[in-house]
């Protein structure tokens, strides 16, 4: 019993289909609990009023936007080293989810920033690096779509993902250097004094776990779709050959 047996598409589909209902239900439940708790049962912040509640969408989305790329990096590495097709397809499946998360984070950030900072957009390091991350996702998805041969596409996008990671990290520090901005630092950590108050952080943790499970469910679902799409392609090719 090792994790590599899930590289078998049949085994992967079989298991993910059994796991997915649990994932969907728990993700939905946690997101519903977290968001409802966050939106309706937390006090208004004494300075920010009720706009503080955007945090329950903004932070989990931003968290998953970065982690989705990280997951794509790991999946790409697995594809490059061990050449398991499911891994490459999982990376492909994660990218659109990742870009949607990035866009949610950008959009909710803009909606939050307008009343708080008086501007929809500022060329702040965090904001700018997220915009650049969105560009990376765009390029990655476009490259997948542009290449016909699936193995070539998987190879090329995997290397693009590796190179992109290096440059994404580099851009992060570059924009940091370029402009010190409005966005506050990280406000959730175990040892810092300047944390978000418990009343906010508890539903926030629920939301973050919910978003994480939702991402996992989406990736399983989309990977399954990719596997089936590839099977259909193979079947049709065989049919054409026989005809």
């Amino acid at each position, binding site marked *: 019993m090792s994790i590599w047996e899930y590289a078998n598409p049949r085994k992967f589909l079989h298991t993910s289909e059994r796991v997915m209902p649990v994932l969907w239900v728990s993700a939905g439940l946690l997101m519903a609990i977290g968001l409802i708790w966050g939106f309706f049962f937390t006090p208004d912040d004494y300075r920010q009023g009720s706009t503080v509640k955007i945090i329950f969408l903004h932070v989990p989305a931003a968290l998953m936007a970065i982690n989705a790329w990280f997951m794509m990096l790991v999946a790409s590495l697995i594809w490059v080293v061990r050449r398991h097709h499911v891994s490459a397809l999982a990376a492909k499946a994660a990218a659109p989810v990742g870009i949607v998360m990035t866009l949610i984070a950008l959009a909710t950030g803009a909606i939050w920033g307008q009343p708080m900072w008086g501007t929809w957009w500022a060329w702040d390091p965090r904001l700018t690096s997220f915009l650049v991350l969105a560009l990376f996702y765009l390029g990655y998805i*476009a490259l997948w779509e542009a290449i016909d041969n699936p193995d070539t596409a998987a*190879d090329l996008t995997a290397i693009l993902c590796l190179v992109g990671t290096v440059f994404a990290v580099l851009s992060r520090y570059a924009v940091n250097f370029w402009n010190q901005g409005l966005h506050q630092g990280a406000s959730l950590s175990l040892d810092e004094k300047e944390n978000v108050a418990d009343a906010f952080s508890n539903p926030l943790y629920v939301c973050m776990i919910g978003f994480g499970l939702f991402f996992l469910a989406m990736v399983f679902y989309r990977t399954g779709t990719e596997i089936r799409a590839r099977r259909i392609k193979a079947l049709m090719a065989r049919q054409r050959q026989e005809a």
Partner: protein
Amino acid sequence: MIALLMRDLRLAVRAGGGFGLGLAFFLIVTVMVPFSVGPESDLLARIAPGVLWLGALLSCLLSLDRLLALDWEDGSLDLLATAPLPLEAVVSIKALAHWITTGLPLVLAAPMLGVLLNLPLEGFKWVLISLLLGTPALSVIGTFGAALTVGLKRGGLLLSLLVMPLYVPTLIFGAEAARRGAMGMVVETPLLMLAGISAGVIALMPFASAAVLRINLR
């Protein structure tokens, strides 16, 4: 390797059009800027370093899809791949040839265009130095993009989409160094970062480009 470099240079010069095209584009971009932002000389002086950097970057981008596509079409890329020279060396030479035919003329033209943008006097030196340090990185990163899209029909647009985000750090540090130089501030930090990016990219990127090219030639 030298033979390959000379061949590429000769091709670039003789093939007509391609060689001067980047320069002409650089000129056009620079001339268009005062039309779009207005001709106040103070404003132009302030944005001149950034505009010169952006113009150089765009002209560099423009010439990228010719970098490998011509060799791909006539099959010489396959020959080069099977030649005793390692593919990493081939892409390095290609990037070098691209820099000599595109990057270097841009660097030399930048001061001339700086006059059009009312660039402050002390800025000329730093624009020149920052471009000299930064354009090799643009060429090398661009070679990676060109290698990624070499087999694709009409890969030019995709190429710019892929390469643009990779250019972000180089552009930030390069333009920042030029800007600080033009304003008479200390330039060491961005300049060193820029040099670091160029050196790192020149050292590592050919491996990625060669890997990608091998996949595309398979």
